[in-house]
C-alpha cells in the first residue's frame, strides 16, 4: 500500500499524486473542474506571506488552495 499524506504536508517542489479529495462540495467541484482527479500530479510551489494559502502546479497552471482544504486532500508519492 502506498503511503498517504495530506497535500498540505507535501514539501515544496515535491511531486504528489492525488488519492482522494474530501473537501466540501463546492471546492471539490471546483478542483475537479481544474482537472484534479485521482492520480493527477500536484506540486506545491508558493506560500503566501500572510500564510494560510499555498499555490500548486496543477497540469501546468498555478492554483492557490487554502490550507484547510489542502489538509483534506490526500496524496501519495511515487
Amino acid at each position, binding site marked *: 500500500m502506498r503511503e498517504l499524506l495530506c497535500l498540505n504536508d507535501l514539501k515544496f517542489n515535491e511531486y504528489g499524486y492525488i488519492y482522494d479529495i474530501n473537501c466540501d462540495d463546492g471546492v471539490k467541484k471546483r478542483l475537479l473542474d481544474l482537472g484534479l482527479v485521482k492520480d493527477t500530479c500536484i506540486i506545491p510551489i508558493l506560500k503566501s506571506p500572510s500564510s494560510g494559502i499555498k499555490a500548486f502546479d496543477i497540469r501546468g497552471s498555478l492554483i492557490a488552495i*487554502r490550507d484547510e482544504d489542502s489538509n483534506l486532500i490526500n496524496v501519495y508519492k511515487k
Partner: protein
Amino acid sequence: MGLTKSSTGTNLLNSNVQYLKNENGFTVALAGNPNVGKSTIFNSLTGLHQHTGNWPGKTVSNATGSFDYLDTNFLLVDIPGTYSILSSSQEEDIARDYICFGNPDVTVVVVDATCLERNLNLVFQIMEITDNVIVCVNLLDEAKKKHIDIDLDLLSNMLGVPVCGTIARKKSTLDNLIDVIYKVCKKEIIPTPKKITYLPIIENSINLLEDKLKTLFNFPSNLYRWISLKLLENDKKIVDSIEKNLDVNFTNDNKLLNLLDNLNNNLDDSRVNKTNFRNIITSSIMKQAEKICNKVCTFENKGYSVRDKKIDKILTSKTFGIPIMLLFLGGIFWITIVGANYPSSILFSFFGYIQENLIDFANLLNCPTWLSNMLILGVYRTLTWIISVMLPPMAIFFPLFTFLEDLGYLPRIAFNMDGFFKKCCCSGKQMITMCMGFGCNAAGVTGCRIINSPREKLIAILTNCFVPCNGRFPFLITIATIFIAGNIQGFTGSIISTMAVLFVILLGIFMTLIISKILSKTILKGMPSSFVLELPPYRKPQFGKILVRSIFDRTLFVLGRAICVAAPAGLVIWIFANVGINGDSLLNIIANFLNPFANLMGLDGYILVAFIFGIPANEIVLPIILMCYLGNGSLVDLDDTFAIGNILVQNGWTILTAINVMIFTCLHFPCTTTLLTIKKETGKWKWTILSFVIPTVCGIALCMFTTFVYNIFVTF
C-alpha cells in the same frame, strides 16, 4: 471586467443580454477557461474595446459585438470565462446559461495552448451540449516560448471538430478562425464531435433515460443526452437551471421519477453514487484529455514556467512580498503626483486665460451679468477645474495601473493578502475587487460576482467603496500635495505626498478588513468559505495598447462622466450661492446649519455641503468647495494647485482640515452610480442603505477622533 463605456456607470444597470440572437445573420459564442484571451479575440474581431486584463474573472457578464465577413453578419457574444459548465459562481452561471440555452449557431471554445489538458475538460463538456463547436487554440506564442508544440490537425481529428491555432494579439492569425466560423455557420463544414464514452453502467442509464425523455418532452435534439446525464448526477443547481430555461418540471412526472430512482439504485449497486458521480465523469473526461494531449503535444517542459517561478518566489516571498506590493502602489502614486503637477498648472492657466476672454466677450455682447456669471463662473469654471485637477493624474495613473493588471500581478496581490482576509472570514478574491474599485467602485461592485460565497460577496460589495476610486484620487493627491507636503518642494515633497496618499489607501484597506470582520461576526455571520484561485502566467504587457486603452477607454470616459455631472452641478451650486433670503445665500444658510456638526469633525459646513452635492459623482467635490468659497462672485486667478491651496488656507483650512478631508474622502457614502449598482447586484434596498451608512459612519467617527486628538495636542 474593467472600465469601459459598457462596464462602468449606469450601463452596468441594463446589461441583461442573456439570450441574444442575431436576426440577420449568425450568432457566435466565445467560450473558454478564464484568462485564455477570449476578450482579446473578441476585440480583434469586432473592433470593440472590451477591457482585457491578465486575471481570471475580469469579464463578468456577456458582451456582444458584431463583425462582417464576406456577405454575412456575425454577432459575437463574449461569455465570462468558466472552467466548467457545472458552475459554482455567479459569473459562471451566466456563462453556463448562455452556452447551454442561448442556442448560438456556433460555439468557439478558446483554449490555452500552454495547458491544453485542463482546457479540454470544458471542450468535452460543451461538445456534449452542441455539435457546432470550433476549438480555437490560443496563446500559441506563449506555448512556443515554453517549447510546447501542438499538432492541430491531429487534435482536430481526435476531437472531431475544426481546430484553429491563433495568437490573439496578432490579428492576422485570426483570419483562419473567421473563415472556419463562416464555413461552420454555412454548413460547409459539419463538426462531428467525438463525445466521451463513460462507464458502461452509466452509458446504459443514459440511454434508457434519454429514450424516456424523448417520449415526454420536446427538447432540442442535441440536449437529451446531456440532460439525462445531469438528471442522473442530480446536481440541484443545474437541474433547476434546466427546468427554468426549458420551462419544464421533471418532478411532475412519476414515471420519470421512478425510472430515475431505479437507475440510481442500479448505479448505486455498481458503486456509482451521488458523492462520486461527478468524480467518475470528470475522470473519464480527463483520461481522454490526457490521452489526446500525449498524442498531439510535444513538451520540453510541461510544468509551470521556470521564469514565472523565479518572479513569483520574490513577489510572494515572506520578507519581500508585502513590501514590494506597497512599493509598487507607492511608486504608481509617486509618478502620478510628480508627473501631474506640471500639466495641471498649464491647464489651469490655459483655462483661466480663456475665462477672462469669455467674460470680455460676454460684456461685448451686452449679456446680462447674472447670465454670464452663471454660465462662466458657474458652469464653465467648474468644468475646467475638474479637467485641470483630474485629467493629468488620471492620464498617468490609469496606464500605470493597467500595466500591473496586464502583467498578471493582481491575483498575486490577492494571494499575498489572503491570510488577512481569511482572519476576517472573507475571501482573498475581495482584494481583486478592491483593486477594481481603484478604477471605479461601481465596476468593483459588479466584479464581486467572482466571489462564490454569497455571504463573502455581500461583504465585498458593502466594503468596496473603502478604496478610493479615480474620482477621488486626484482630490486626495491635490490635498496631499498642498497641505501635507506643504512648502517642501521637489523630491522630498513628492515623497511626502506619496506617503500621505498611500497612508489613506492603507487606511481604506485596514478599514475594509475591520468592517469585514465586524460584518462576519454580526449581520453576516459565517466561517470563511474556501476558495480556489488561479495565478495566471505573467504576460508582457503591450505598451501601445495600454496607452490607447487607458487614455481613451478609461480616462476620457471617466472625465466625460464627471463633466456631464459637473455642468449641471456647477449651475445648481452657482444658483445656491447667489440666490438667497435676506441677502444670505442658500448655500450659506445650509452651510451654517451644518457648520456646528462639521466643526466636530474638524471640517466646515461648506465641505460637508460639497460632499453632499458630490453624491452624483465624487469628482466634483473639490470644485464645489472652491465654488462655495469663491461663490459670491469674487474672481480669483487660479494658476496652479498652490493657488487652490491659498484659497483653502484663506478660508480657514489647517493641517487638521486637510487630514480630515482626506479621511472623509476615503470613507464616505458611495456615489449614486455605485449605490444603484449595489441595489442591482444585491437586489435589496437594505444592503444599499447599509453600504451608504457604514462608510459614512466610519468616516464621521474617524474624523471626530482625529479632531479630538488634535485638539488635545493643541491645548497642551
